[in-house]
């Protein structure tokens, strides 16, 4: 398992440990790719009705989050809020605004800075 994959597991475990947060995301079904800009690492996770799916994802992502691998791991391990690298241009997103606003909300809820 790569560092990025392990960090994603930490994030998803923390998310699933908050059932009220999961239930608030009902109806949200994006496919999110987390892409490192300094290494070839990339991980993809699909949400269906707000719940992450564990099977391998084949479809193209609807939301792409890019940063260097260390930053992505820090955010996924809830060491750092995504707002900070986003504000300073060290983390970028591409996709529907509603999707990245929701993802930002979830990450901020899990990691209040």
């Amino acid at each position, binding site marked *: 398992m790569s560092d990025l994959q392990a960090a994603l597991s930490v994030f998803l475990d923390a998310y699933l440990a908050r059932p009220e947060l999961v239930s*608030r995301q009902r109806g949200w*079904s*994006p*496919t999110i790719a987390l892409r490192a800009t300094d290494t070839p690492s990339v991980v993809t996770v699909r949400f269906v009705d707000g719940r992450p799916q564990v099977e391998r994802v084949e*479809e193209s992502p*609807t939301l792409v989050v890019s940063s260097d691998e260390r930053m992505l791991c820090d955010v996924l391990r809830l060491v750092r*809020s995504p*707002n*900070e690298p*986003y*504000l*300073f*241009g*060290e983390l*970028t*997103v*591409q*996709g*529907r*605004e*509603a*999707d*990245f*606003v*929701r993802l930002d*909300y979830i990450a*901020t*809820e899990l990691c209040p*800075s």
Partner: protein
Amino acid sequence: MSAPARPGPTALLATGCGTAVASVCALGLVQIQRSLAGPWAVAAVVAAGGACAVLARTFGRLNEVVPSGAGLPAYLSRAFGRRVGLRLALPYLFLMIALAGIETRIVGTLLGAVLGVPAWTCGLAFLLVTWGVCRLGVRPGYRAQVVATAALMVLLAGAALLALAGALRDGRATDLVRVAPPPLAVFLAAVGQAFFLFMGFELVTSHVEVAGSARPVGVALRRSVVVLTGFYGLLVAGFAAMPAVTSPASWLTPQVTMAAATGGALGVAAVTVACLLASYTSFNGALLALSRLVQVLSSQGVFPRGLARVDPQRLVPARALDALTVLAAVAAVLLSGHAATLVVLGAAAGAATLMYASALWARERAPFREAGRSRLARLVSATLAAALLLLGSGAVIEAALTVSSRAAAASGGTHGR
């Protein structure tokens, strides 16, 4: 899963123009036209537009390397470090709030004239409605922005053309064109003031996240400068050609005075509706975008952390929205006089040139500078950045001089600008 809807080139172009063209721009144009006679006012707008054409390429490059909706703070932080980046970007935020206050008063004046009720009640109602809609997480779509921006620009351009045609018909055209050159300092101050008109065109870079790539945003940046230069040039010529009117509308709404002089009651109604639509769409978008910026800044401790709170149902930064609405209302109350408004317009021009100069400097630093970037290109950037700072300073000084001469005239002095 369907692919996310991406804004097309027309929508991005309209967004770039729409954020720059606010009702308050008419005030800026009249201010330029008062300090310079007809063709020189047009020349000042075109000169500012020429510099903005270079800036459009600069912002295109910044956006290509850092495709972030955070925009200016992100670019400047990457180039100069976090602390300097934030300090350079913050004046822009505060000036936007002051401009929101003036825009609120303009909308209040427009609505008040139509409804026959005090302007302040209409301004307050406009703020509350916009705040309420933003709180619900509703924002106008790209199509609504295209319609609102196009309607306002077409109507005002039409009124300006009618004013120019009227000047030709009345035999005033020669007087308009044959004017002595102004002093160089006055002309340069007007060029500095004209940057205020373009302020906001670069915000289209924040749409890179939904546009899919930086390329269409770069195209929209360049095209919006061309469209804005033509539009403002035509409008300032129209203001110069406007016949003297015996009962002008409020000084806050010179566009209505021009519509009345060229299109009568129908023209006034059309321009008023278009101004209200354009003000609403741009105000709504600006409030949501600024509230998100305030939320992110608050989460970093720049502002009180309580403002970082997001409404879990609507996913909007509710407290930041509340705070910005209150600040806009306070700005509308405080900036109630002509003098205060002129000071804000001058300061906005100063903030715009500072921001644009910073962008030019950022473009010549890592990670934005290409390996093969020529020394000549870097020299041109540095020279333009220095010139922008000088022009902006000139605009601030010109506004201060205008205000002081008005004050002197009001208190019994004999000279006025």
